[in-house]
């Protein structure tokens, strides 16, 4: 805004200077006021522009931060169970890259839109004061521009969507072929698929050119009007100055007003041209926003809102649970679990679990067995609080922590110590070492030159499946959690590491923690105090294959 007014003053002073010099043959000394005005206007204009850019960017950065925070909160709200069906790399790219593409819209397009509405108006008023006929020409040209842009924009919108799909398919195709590269090599198709990849990319090029042809028309229209306006204004002023035009205010034109108008004519269109340059910021932000909004919206198949039957049950559960849970949980020792006539069903479908009731005391070891799909995992997820029961009550003391261990332990990028401290931020190095020893990683630690500072994750040392699992075990030892939920902890391991992990589990049980394990493994069943089979959603007690847990501890 300030920059716009400064430009105005600069151009006015420039025109006055030239007028003085050419028409009145003024000496350099006589126009020094004009020169100083120009210099000041230039500096103010540049600084104002700087301010606009910096403020716009700050705004863009804040928006990104806020959107990311909301997305993370949404992911947490969705919970691990519903996120399981989504591609984590895809979600991460939404969180990082798509949010990134919002910035241009907020930092450049939006401020520019305000400017594009206001600044031409100011210029128009000045030109009108100088010469109303020229102003009327600008006035005619200016509204035509948004009109044309809107018309063309509508066509481009549809083409843009088609384009967007093409891009998605293109990178999908590329990813697909790269993933299967080994197979392509084995079948001798590598050469052919190289051609295929670039053929598909060329096909995409032809397709997107169709879009671009139309999309660029809009900016060409703008360009055309801007250029023609300058030309028309220049010719009109020139002829007016020569006295060829007798009509209207032409006779009042002098070099000052004429040059001033000419200098303002391109500036009049400049904000609009800048706006159209930022138009793709808007397009990509809209594309990204669509995906982000879908993620932020509540799910359609949200069990809480969908099934009327479940709904009813939920009302009951929700009404009763808080106070009941509170009072009961207060009585519950940490580590103890009570399920009261719990049921679980997916929206609109038959029951998966229940009704079932069970009571687990602190320090007990329970094993659930059953074929895959029987609901073992769902039961654990319910106890952990990842999913809410459709009916009944789950009573668990979830604070300060419960421990969760499945087949894919979380390994964050960072050092070994950082990986452990995620669950116990205040633990001392000695505590970390002791937890690692208890989890069976003592030798591994001794052989790692960097010790606790060994980097893990993508760029660090890769851990084998068994080592990862034992790292997860070390977390359990480290955390204050009294209740440990384990979902098939040994399913992906070979016999030797399996033995190590089971030994770690035995030590866990010996430390007085409650273990609830979904498993197929006979050795784990053997260490359990109670074993239940899940059949058709019901629990039935099974006699243990080998008699007692003492054998192992």
């Amino acid at each position: 805004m300030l920059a716009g007014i400064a430009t105005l003053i600069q151009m006015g002073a420039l025109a006055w200077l030239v007028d003085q010099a050419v028409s009145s043959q003024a000496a350099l000394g006589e126009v020094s006021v004009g020169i100083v005005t120009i210099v000041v206007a230039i500096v103010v204009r540049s600084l104002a522009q700087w301010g606009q850019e910096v403020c716009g960017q700050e705004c863009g950065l804040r928006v990104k931060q806020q959107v990311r925070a909301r997305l993370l909160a949404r992911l947490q709200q969705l919970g691990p169970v519903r996120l399981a069906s989504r591609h984590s790399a895809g979600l991460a790219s939404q969180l990082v890259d798509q949010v990134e593409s919002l910035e241009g819209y907020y930092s450049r397009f939006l401020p520019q839109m305000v400017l594009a509405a206001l600044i031409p108006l100011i210029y128009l008023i000045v030109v009108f004061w100088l010469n109303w006929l020229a102003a009327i020409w600008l006035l005619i040209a200016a509204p035509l521009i948004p009109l044309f842009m809107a018309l063309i924009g509508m066509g481009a919108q549809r083409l843009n969507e088609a384009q967007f799909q093409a891009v998605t398919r293109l990178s999908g195709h590329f990813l697909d072929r790269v993933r299967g590269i080994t197979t392509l090599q084995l079948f001798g198709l590598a050469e052919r698929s190289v051609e295929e990849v670039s053929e598909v990319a060329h096909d995409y090029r032809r397709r997107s050119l169709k879009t671009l042809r139309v999309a660029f028309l809009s900016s060409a229209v703008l360009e055309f009007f801007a250029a023609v306006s300058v030309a028309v204004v220049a010719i009109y002023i020139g002829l007016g100055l020569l006295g060829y035009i007798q009509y209207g205010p032409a006779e009042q034109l002098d070099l000052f007003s004429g040059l001033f108008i000419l200098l303002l004519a391109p500036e009049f269109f400049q904000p609009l041209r800048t706006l159209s340059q930022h138009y793709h910021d808007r397009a990509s932000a809209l594309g990204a926003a669509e995906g982000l909004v879908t993620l932020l919206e509540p799910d359609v198949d949200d069990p809480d809102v969908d099934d009327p039957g479940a709904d009813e049950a939920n009302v009951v559960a929700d009404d009763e649970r808080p106070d009941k849970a509170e009072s009961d949980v207060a009585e519950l020792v940490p580590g103890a679990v009570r399920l009261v006539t719990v049921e679980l069903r997916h929206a609109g479908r038959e029951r998966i679990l229940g009704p079932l009731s069970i009571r687990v005391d602190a320090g007990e070891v329970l094993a659930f067995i059953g074929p895959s799909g029987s609901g073992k995992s769902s039961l654990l997820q319910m106890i952990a609080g990842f999913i809410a029961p459709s009916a009944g009550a789950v009573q668990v003391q979830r604070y300060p922590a419960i421990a969760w261990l499945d087949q894919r332990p979380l390994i964050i990028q960072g050092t070994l110590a950082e990986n452990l401290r995620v669950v116990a931020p205040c633990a001392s190095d000695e505590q970390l070492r002791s937890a690692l020893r208890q989890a069976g990683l003592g030798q591994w630690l001794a052989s790692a030159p960097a010790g606790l500072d060994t980097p893990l994750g993508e760029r660090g040392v890769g851990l084998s499946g068994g080592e990862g699992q034992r790292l997860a075990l070390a977390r359990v030892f480290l955390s204050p959690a009294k209740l440990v939920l384990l979902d098939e902890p040994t399913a992906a391991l070979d016999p030797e590491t399996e033995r190590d992990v089971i030994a770690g589990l035995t030590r866990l049980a010996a430390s007085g923690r409650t273990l609830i394990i979904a498993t197929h493994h006979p050795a784990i069943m053997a260490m359990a105090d109670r074993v239940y089979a899940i059949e058709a959603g019901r629990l039935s007690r099974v006699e243990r294959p080998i008699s007692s847990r003492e054998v192992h501890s």
Partner: protein
Amino acid sequence: MKALMALRPWLGVLAERRGRLLLGAMLMLATLLSALGLLSLSGWFITATAVAALSASGYLDVFTPGSGIRFFAVSRTASRYLERLYNHDTILRLLADLRGRVFAGLVSLDARTLSRARASQWLNRLTADIDTLDNLYLRLMAPPLVALISVVAFAAFAAVFLPIAGLMLFAILLPLGLIATAGCAWWGWRASHRRVDRQERLRVRAIEQVEGLAELSAYQALEAHRELWRREEQSLLGDQRQLGRRTATGNLVVTLGIQLATLAVLLLGLTALREGNVSGPVMVMLALGTLAVSEGLGNLPMAFTQLGATVRTAERLNAQAELKTPMTGTSVKDEPLISSGAAPSLVYQDVDVAHGEQVVFSGLNLSIDPGQRIGIIGASGIGKSTLAQLAVRAFDPEGGHVEFNHQDLAGLAPDSLRARIGYLTQRSELFHDTLAANLRMGDPDASDAELWKVLAQVELKSWAETLPEGLATWVGEQGRQLSGGQARRVALARVMLRNSPLVILDEPLSGLDADTATALKVTLDAWLAGRTALLLGHDRQALPVCDHCWRLVPGVSGGKLV
């Protein structure tokens, strides 16, 4: 300067299209010159008319400049439109070339390198990196070149009328151009170079948060992990803020420089005007021309503060190309395999293989006679798949050799070797294509009837018949529309269509239910007759009947067969 070397291979790719690039740059130049012509000619015209009106004669040829103005108005629009269209076409062509190039590079990688790099995250990064490189020409190469040409041309033009003004334009605009390009690049280098990796780290944290949500929320440790996330986010935002500030400052310097140059030209013109060295219209023309020519400098600071990011992207793509193992380099002299279609023998002799520190095999021996069926069983990760990979020459052993029909594999072209081997890999890799297309990878000439026959052999016929689109059904990305067992059998059917004399099956029955597995064992038993076969599985039950079965067990120095 050394850092820019990372761009070299990619400049090479650009150079292949240099004709198009040059033409595109010419169009850019034409656009800029049209704008220059329009504004300076208009300024000249108006001043000239004013002067003419003041003077007694009052005559001026208005038609020549008038049509000049109209011409520039139209040519600016036309050249701008053409320039954008043409240059985008060029960029898309380049991207197609780049994808092809990178893919060809990946195809020549060996299996071990590939398996290290298969994470889909890595792949997403790869695609994104390629797309980033399009900046190189459209923002970093053509605009500064066009700006340079137009500045030099205009300064020379000005020098014709007023030598001192021309000199001054050189003296101000050339250093300004240098500041806008090299200066901004240097100033934004560290932050933009780092930003690429910081963004990547933020992505990693996001993945951790999604994949580890169960563990983190159970431990009530989400907040602790968020803290890590926030730290990465802050440093990323910090970089971006710094870059934005520096871009804005770069713009500030460029705007100031341009406007002051305009003023300086005007003042020089004024002095000359008083001395009668230059006419009023020309003075105005030069001043307005300076304003117009600077349009070419305006976008440079923004593009060049981001140079570091483009270079970092190129570095990452280069690093991926360097993953290549030397083996592919020798493939030129490899001879094609000469062999009849009869069942061959396969011999491993004193084979040593190590993955980094870890010894997989040391002095391993295994001999499979023509037509013999050997099973290898052992725990996962012990090296069964390595045996198969050696046989298809996915990589060469560190010591000893592998012989196919008494020919050492080390001298054979992998393609001719692989044409004789049907290898079912442990993962069922299906492509986002139709069922028929996936099957025809095994035999491109197979008829529909043959496809149905092989589907019947793997017990998939009745399922395929229930599909509304039959063989034309799309199997989804990585075959996700199919169950694990179905995908396994499609992959097996593909190998069977290959009809090769040597067959390697790695866990052929994994993911199948007991009934289907039993049925397939019978089918495979019949189909394998007359072929040499190497069968790999975690236990005997997981394999069809073998002539002999070895167990691969871990030893002090790598796996041993017992």
